[in-house]
């Protein structure tokens, strides 16, 4: 019995997290346009150091690229490499052209499908793709691993992918654009009179959130808020009681999770965010949680939302 319950639980958790990546496309945004690169001709062969400190030597500019995550797909398209992408995941929904590419798996990567494309570059994310990386490196496939654990990592990921594909110039521009947009938001939001407490709510039963030092934690800070979870919690889980103690002013969650949160006993009375129906949904669920060039757009939306919250309570005492 307990075994079956556990498996159900695990499956549920797996789907919840799969859901963070499997998202709909609500707002269609034109692909980022960057002026074409002019001067420098990339020199090959070149050796690229990836996020694990491992070197990958490329003899030619990659012509057949497979992406193992939605974020890498977006980075590749932002670097104008869309035509060279020959494999993406089921969850890769941006830009629209990405959806037409051959699928190499969803939650689980299908190694055979990756290899059958004869890729000369496979772009993976540390941790998220650990099993696929292990399997692909066993057969000596050219895997480039990037990290997306923080915003700095994400900027580095853009630059690393740019270096591997010979699009260094565009990559540097994309990364510095992201950096300066985020800096601008941070600067603008420092004028907020008080910092709303923001809770990231991935799921309600069990309540999964994210603590200090995480990627979402950074985003909340840049957008002018503070993470309601200011101390790491065991397994990134919270109890319903702890949420009542934390009293978040705003909850970031998916549209399906909001009604469940509203029905939690006591939350409608004791949690300001629920009492005042302050649930933040980004225009596209992906842009806040997907470490990709569209990230500043999501942060900007959250920043605007937090500003409205602050303005609606002129007498708030922190």
């Amino acid at each position, binding site marked *: 019995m307990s075994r079956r319950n556990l498996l159900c639980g695990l499956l549920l958790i797996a789907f919840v997290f799969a859901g963070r990546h499997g998202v709909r496309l609500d707002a269609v945004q034109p692909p980022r346009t960057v002026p074409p690169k002019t001067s420098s001709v990339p020199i090959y062969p070149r050796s690229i150091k990836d996020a694990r400190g491992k070197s990958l030597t490329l003899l030619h500019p990659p012509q057949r690229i497979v992406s193992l995550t939605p974020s890498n797909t977006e980075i590749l398209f932002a670097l104008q490499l869309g035509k060279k992408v020959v494999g993406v995941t089921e969850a890769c929904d941006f830009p629209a052209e990405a959806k037409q590419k051959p699928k190499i798996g969803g939650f689980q990567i299908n190694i*055979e*499908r990756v290899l*059958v494309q*004869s890729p000369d570059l496979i772009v993976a994310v540390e941790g998220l793709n*650990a*099993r696929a990386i292990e399997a692909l490196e066993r*057969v000596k*496939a050219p895997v480039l691993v990037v990290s997306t654990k923080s915003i700095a990592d994400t900027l580095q990921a853009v630059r690393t992918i740019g270096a591997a594909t010979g699009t260094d110039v565009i990559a540097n521009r994309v990364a510095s654009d992201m950096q300066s947009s985020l800096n601008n938001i941070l600067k603008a939001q420092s004028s907020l009179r008080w910092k709303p407490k923001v809770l990231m709510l991935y799921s309600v039963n069990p309540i999964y959130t994210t603590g200090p030092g995480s990627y979402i934690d950074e985003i909340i800070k840049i957008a002018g808020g503070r993470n309601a979870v200011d101390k790491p919690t065991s397994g*990134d*889980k919270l109890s319903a009681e702890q949420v009542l103690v934390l009293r978040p002013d705003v909850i970031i969650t998916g549209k399906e999770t909001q009604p469940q949160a509203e029905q939690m006993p006591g939350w409608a009375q004791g949690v300001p965010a629920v009492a005042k129906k302050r649930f933040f949904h980004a225009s596209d669920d992906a842009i806040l949680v997907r470490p990709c060039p569209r990230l500043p757009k999501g942060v900007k939306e959250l920043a605007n939302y937090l500003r409205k919250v602050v303005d609606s309570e002129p007498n708030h005492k922190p």
Partner: protein
Amino acid sequence: MTPAPTSSKESQSFASKKRHPYLSLMALVFLLVGAVLVNIGSGDAMVSEKISPGTVLQVIRLHLPFLSSHTPPLPVESSADSIVWELRAPGAVGGVLVGALLAMAGVAFQSFLQNPLADPYMVGVSSGAALGSVLVILMGGTGLLLGWAQPIAAFATGLLATAIVYFLAQKQGRLSSQTFLLAGIVVGTFFWSFVPLAISLGNRSGNLDRQSAILSRLLGSLQSITWSHVVLLAVFGGIGGLMLWTGANELDMMAFGEESAAHLGVNVEGFKRRIILAGALVTAAAVSVAGIIAFVGLVVPHIARRIVGPDHRVLLPTSFLLGGLVLTSADWLSRVYLAQLEVGVITSLIGAPIFCYLLRRGLN
């Protein structure tokens, strides 16, 4: 692609009327070889578009000692060699060994405990091994010891659980079957309860990949089997399997009860220790490589008994072949049609109805 190797059913009706054990064994060998070839030869629609059975055959010939020099080489940019020889072949061969060993251990445990419900997981191996695997995955240690950390930890904790069961169940050098089964269940449950505990305390919500790695260990999967895993299976499976097979006569005598076996000259206590050790070795090897694959160790022995009867000299090899056939067929279904669903789920899906059918037949 040719239709699925329809595993046991044909051979069952074919042989259950008149028992020709060696004919059944031959038929099973052919079926098994066919199933393995079909399994290696086919991929899901997108892959088989580019890698035809002909290409697969070419790859296999390139790896065979005498044929390779007469085979045209593959195009340089083709990934067929990696797909066929590094992914499919070890998975298929390892899968056969896992299924075969589990089924064999199932026969031995059912016979010497004289309990039709016994299976290789009853002695705590599976829960112990699951705990070892989950701990290594949660601590992010899958890359340690040249990538061997997880199977080694699973193997060790699996054997540890069995050792605890054994020492709980024996008293002054004597082992009671009833106590052994009870102790197995209790220790198994105890070890199992650490699995959700470890997951609950040790898992970070962001780590999607660990979730799926844990799931594949708990549900059983052949996806990550490499040639070195096949070697591990062959070595420990070989030792344990030989220990079981050479005990076939004693297993026959144990069927008449321990006392009769003792009268017939069997050193009952020593023999039990040997079977427990062999069964635990074999099962721990299978579980550490493939996770907990359900039902093969329970149902296949019953089907095998229907085909060839209770003589262990024939029953053990029949179970061995049939277990391999069942698991490789389930793996084939999973890979080609079910988006790599964990193979343990498929064996349960197929195994439970077959078991119900056998139960009804037994009642009539």
